[in-house]
């Protein structure tokens, strides 16, 4: 068994190298002086910090960061809550309109988002929600919801129904059982879909571009665009340094929820 583990570790190491190489390449590039980026390859992340300096010095970095963080966290929160409730409904109940709901949600997911752009902006404009965190959050929640509903449904299905019923025999109401029994058990699913929602909202560009057009309302991906000078080329060093920084919060978020969930699972196991 132990020897087997050693083999898997080697395989995992190899996979890691392959998977992480382009990211590593991005980081290496972010340390290269701008004029030198488009020349023969270099393999070590040494050189200049100028690119990072130009990221931090460019106007509106921190406000964009704050906007992105707010929109993303709100999106994750709302998407997970609403999706969990809906997932329980479709996984645990047989009711009229259940299939219709699932199919409609899937159809919504199938529509190319770009085609909806002008209408989404028009709606938000009507509600006076352009250039507001709330407006962008509403849009993002709607876009990640179909996926989160469908995936969480799979996870809820995986929780044995008997566990809920046992809790109900103990006097819990059905709704209560969902929260006390089912919710902790689908925690891995919540993490997976939560990360999905986080990354979608965090990296989204197209809608952020047109919903948030005031300089102090922009989100990070749109802000990053300022390093692209159109015909005058692109400050690649800035783009790579900015992109590197942008990925950090995702990793932090992951490690955070990952530990929490590991703890939560252990706690649940002890309790059970």
């Amino acid at each position, binding site marked *: 068994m132990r020897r087997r583990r050693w083999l898997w570790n080697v395989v995992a190491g190899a996979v890691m190298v392959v998977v992480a190489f382009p990211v590593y390449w991005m980081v290496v590039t972010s340390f290269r002086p*701008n*004029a030198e*980026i*488009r*020349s023969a390859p270099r393999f070590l992340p040494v050189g200049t910090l100028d690119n990072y300096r130009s990221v931090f010095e460019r106007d509106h970095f921190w406000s964009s960061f704050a906007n992105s963080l707010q929109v993303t966290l709100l999106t994750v929160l709302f998407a997970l809550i609403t999706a969990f409730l809906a997932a329980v409904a479709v996984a645990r109940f047989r009711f009229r309109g259940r299939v219709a709901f699932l199919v409609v949600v899937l159809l919504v997911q199938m529509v190319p988002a770009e085609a909806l*752009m*002008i209408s989404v*902006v028009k709606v938000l*404009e009507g509600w006076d929600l*352009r*250039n507001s965190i709330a407006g962008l959050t509403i849009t993002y929640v709607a876009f990640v919801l179909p996926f989160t509903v469908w995936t969480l449904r799979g996870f809820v299905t995986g929780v044995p129904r008997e566990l809920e019923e046992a809790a109900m025999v103990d006097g819990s109401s059905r709704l209560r059982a969902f929260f006390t029994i089912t919710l902790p058990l689908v925690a891995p699913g919540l993490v997976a879909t939560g990360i999905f929602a986080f990354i979608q909202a965090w990296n989204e560009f*197209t809608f952020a*571009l*047109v919903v948030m*057009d*005031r*300089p102090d309302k922009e989100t990070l991906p*749109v802000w990053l*665009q*300022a390093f*692209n*000078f*159109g*015909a*005058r*080329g*692109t*400050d690649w060093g800035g783009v790579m340094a900015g992109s590197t920084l942008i990925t950090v919060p995702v990793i932090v978020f992951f490690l955070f929820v990952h530990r929490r969930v590991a703890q939560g699972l252990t706690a649940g196991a002890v309790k059970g």
Partner: protein
Amino acid sequence: MKTRKLAAVGLAGVLVLAAACGSDDDDGGTSGAAGGASLEAPPADTEATLRVWLNGPDTPDEMIDLAKETFAEKYPDVSVEVERQEWDGLVNRLTNVLPTDDSPDIVEMGNTQAQAFEAAGALVDLSSVKDDLGGDDLVDSLVEAGTYGDEFYGVPYYGGARIVVYRKDLFEKSGLSVPTTMEEFVAAGKKLKADNADVPNFSGIYFPGRNWQATLSFIWDAGGDIAVNEGGEWVGELSSDNSIKGLSTVQDIMRNANAAPADSDDAEDYLAFCNGEVGMLMGPGWKMGQITGDDGCPGKYDAVLGAFPLPGSEGGVAPSFLGGSNLGISAKSENPGLALQFLEVLTAQQYQTEFAKIGLIPVRKSLLGQVQGDEAAQAQAKAAEVTRFVPSSENWAEVESGTVLHDMGAAIAGGADVTDEATRANDAVVEILNG
């Protein structure tokens, strides 16, 4: 609503608005639409905020400060907020934000993008005040980009003609002098490539397949064109004998004097130049500044950089594509009168002279002859005398987004048959323009 406002704007020009005095106190309500459409100069004590969108790094901060200061002398209580926009994604933003009540007052558009917004009614008709903005002194091909039908919407902001940037040291080494005809230019490129064969990826003339703006110069020089408007119908010219002659020269350069990848564009030519892989390249007037600036390689080639306008086959200067941008007032602007006052600052002699200093072409013909400065500025001023523009059509943007000319150039650079490619591109262009 929109039509009503536009009608009001049109009327404003005719009626000269004796009654409009004092109706401009920026009430901000929707009822202000009709009053807001006045192009009359508001009183000097007006309090308001003007939102101005300027794109990319072309307008330096110092020029923005200059414009604000000049404007503040006249309107001390108006706050001008200049918001920088990026060229990438600009059309999307304009499309979505201009129709809203939260629209910026003044927007800058690329001269090939402007037509679509003019046609759509997104901008205020400025025909009646054209003279205040420069009138006949404005550079013609930029005025063309700013005109839809007979109406004038887009005020020329700056232009950029294409020049040739070259390495004097390499010219000297190969015993070359500045070419005066197209033929000499091509020959010089081939010689440079042969003489520097030891440098990997070396281009005598750096000419990637997708540099369609440069390609146009050769088509026009040979007497060809993209398409011509005959009584409202676009007739293709790309596959005419003259155009094919020009495109054959292009192919000759791309295949025999050039090492740029056939399917790439010119966005990174300055980096190749900095790598020492380029003898000559064709680019906008600010290209030299880009090479010597922080984005390029300051100090490396500063002493040996030169520039000249692309020579024509009969001598003289070959026609060059005039890039540039236009400014418009959003039809949704609450303060079009005030916005017009700011536009006047941006097109005034004092401000426009600044553009000449940073490698761009001022939009006033009277300033073209006075362009001082380095070789690039001089070369550009000469090139600017014979500039041309793409077909003036609201559908032109689709030719660009459909990459018709990019594909043609890439295929030609790859060695495809010129006549076949020209015919295919011609059909596509005609279909889009007449679509």
